[in-house]
Each structure stands twice: as structure tokens, then as C-alpha cells.
């Protein structure tokens, strides 16, 4: 069994209105040196297989077909063996 941690980031070329708005909030708070805030997603789950290669294959498919939209997002993940 593996624990997967997936990080999904919006591509640099895609606008992130949410990030821009959050950064405005930082300025209102007086946190003034923040630049380029981008908001992504962190997704965790377990993969119930014994073999790391099989886990990678399945996570790749999950990420590329459902968890991310390849037009606007990139993903990366790490697998940690548990049990």
C-alpha cells in the first residue's frame, strides 16, 4: 500500500484571479512583500497495490484523466510506502 500526495498547480500562463485576490488581502493585512500568489490543490489518497511501478501507473492515470485538467494544470506526486 502506498500513500499518494498529489500537487496540482495552475500553469504559469493561466491567470489565477483567486491568487490575485488573496494577495490583495495580504496587502490589506500589511503583509507587503508577497508576490505572485498562485493557488493550487493538494490531494491525498492511498493506493492499494504492492508494487511501486503499478502504483505510479495508476496515480498517473488518475491525475491526468480526472484530478487535473491538462489544458490549464500540471501535476506532480509522491508515493510513500505504508504498512
Amino acid at each position, binding site marked *: 500500500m502506498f500513500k499518494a500526495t498529489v500537487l496540482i498547480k495552475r500553469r504559469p*500562463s*493561466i*491567470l489565477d*484571479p*483567486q491568487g490575485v*485576490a488573496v494577495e490583495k488581502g495580504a496587502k490589506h493585512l500589511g503583509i507587503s512583500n508577497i508576490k505572485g500568489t498562485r493557488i493550487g490543490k493538494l490531494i491525498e489518497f492511498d493506493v492499494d497495490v504492492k508494487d511501486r511501478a503499478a502504483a505510479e501507473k495508476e496515480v498517473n492515470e488518475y491525475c491526468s484523466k*480526472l484530478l487535473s*485538467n491538462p*489544458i*490549464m494544470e500540471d501535476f506532480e506526486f509522491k508515493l510513500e510506502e505504508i504498512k
Partner: protein
Amino acid sequence: MSLKFGVVVFPGSNCDHDAYYSLRKVLNYDVEFLWHKDTDLKQSSVILLPGGFSYGDYLRTGAIARFSPIMNSVISFANKGGIVIGICNGFQILLEAGLLPGVMIRNNSLKFACKDVYLKTENRETIFSAEISEETKALKIPIAHGEGNYFADIELLKELETNRQILFRYSDADGNVNDENNPNGSQLNIAGIVNKNGNVMGMMPHPERACDPTLGRTDGQQIFKSIANYILN
């Protein structure tokens, strides 16, 4: 071909009944609901993906609905030239399914935009717009969305323009397209597009909410009448 609209019902669809009502009660067309878990399109000649918040908009708008069993049938129907229209969340589902190009991101205001807007028709030579009269400078149709900010890269935008795939742009009442009348930050004020073959259309505004005269606006009828006339003639 006989005219029959199939309105897909996803968990979280909330404009399915509006669409059904406008098509059946106002325009007197044959229409049937199609459940997302089914695969049978019930001899529909037009598939309508309605607005709403399918699967709670979890992950990304339209991302999970795109894998509903009915969508395999809708995708093969579209690939064979079948007519498909996606409204609001339906448009987002068509983007996720790859039936239309581009992506939808959060409105630049970060606010949910719910109001009447005006749409300039950019191409009257499509299945969806042939009956929009030349006198109509702009269609008055409501929007209701939080993620209607259409995004495409420069190459795709050029391609959309070259192929005349941009169907509707946000404008003022006279059809002038400008930043002031862009409600969500969409590139090139894009409100609706068609695919290259011209049989699949997606739009963020809600034509089904602009059909019944008692609601004070009927411009949405012109879109449905265009589709009906195309099939019947």
C-alpha cells in the same frame, strides 16, 4: 429527422426543469429528460446539457459529470455529427469532455455574476444562430455563474476567430463589444463558441431563462428556434 430534445439530468443540475419547461411549454417541442446513469439517448435529435452545479462543482466545474455514463453516449453522438448544446455548467462539462476547446476559470471579479447581459451574435451561419434576426443588435439573456471566465491560449483564440467558432460575445445593448460589458473577464468577451464542425455549442448565458414572455425576455427563443428549423427543414 424528427425534432426531440434530450435534457440530461446530472446530480446537481438545476436548470434542467427550466430547459424542459421552455422547450415543451413555451416552444411546444418534444423533449425528454435523460438520466446521467443511463446510456440511452432515447432517439433525441438534440442533446442539451443544462446549467447547475453537477457533482457540487467539486474538483473543477464539470470535471466529474464528464465521466457520467451518459456522457460516453453524448460524446459518440457528437462525434457522429449529433447536435449538442451546453448551457452554463453544460458548457463547462463540454470543455472538460474535450468536445469544445479551452477552459473556464473563476470570474475575474471572484463574484457570482447573476444578471441580464447582452450578446452580440458573431456568426449567423450556424445551426444555433441562423434564426437570429439581423435587426437583433444584441440578445438579452441572463447569466448566473461564478466560473465563466473563458480562457484559451493565443493560438487557440486565433483558431477560433479564423474558423468563426466564436458565436456570442458579451456586448452592450447595441452590440458593441467592450471591456465594460464583460461580466467575468472572458478573453475576447467570449460568451459562446461552437466546435470546428459546428454541431456542438456551449454558452454561459441561459437562453432557457429567456423564452417565456411572462419573464420579460424572449431572446433565448431565437437560439432554440434556430436549432429546430435546422432539424425540421
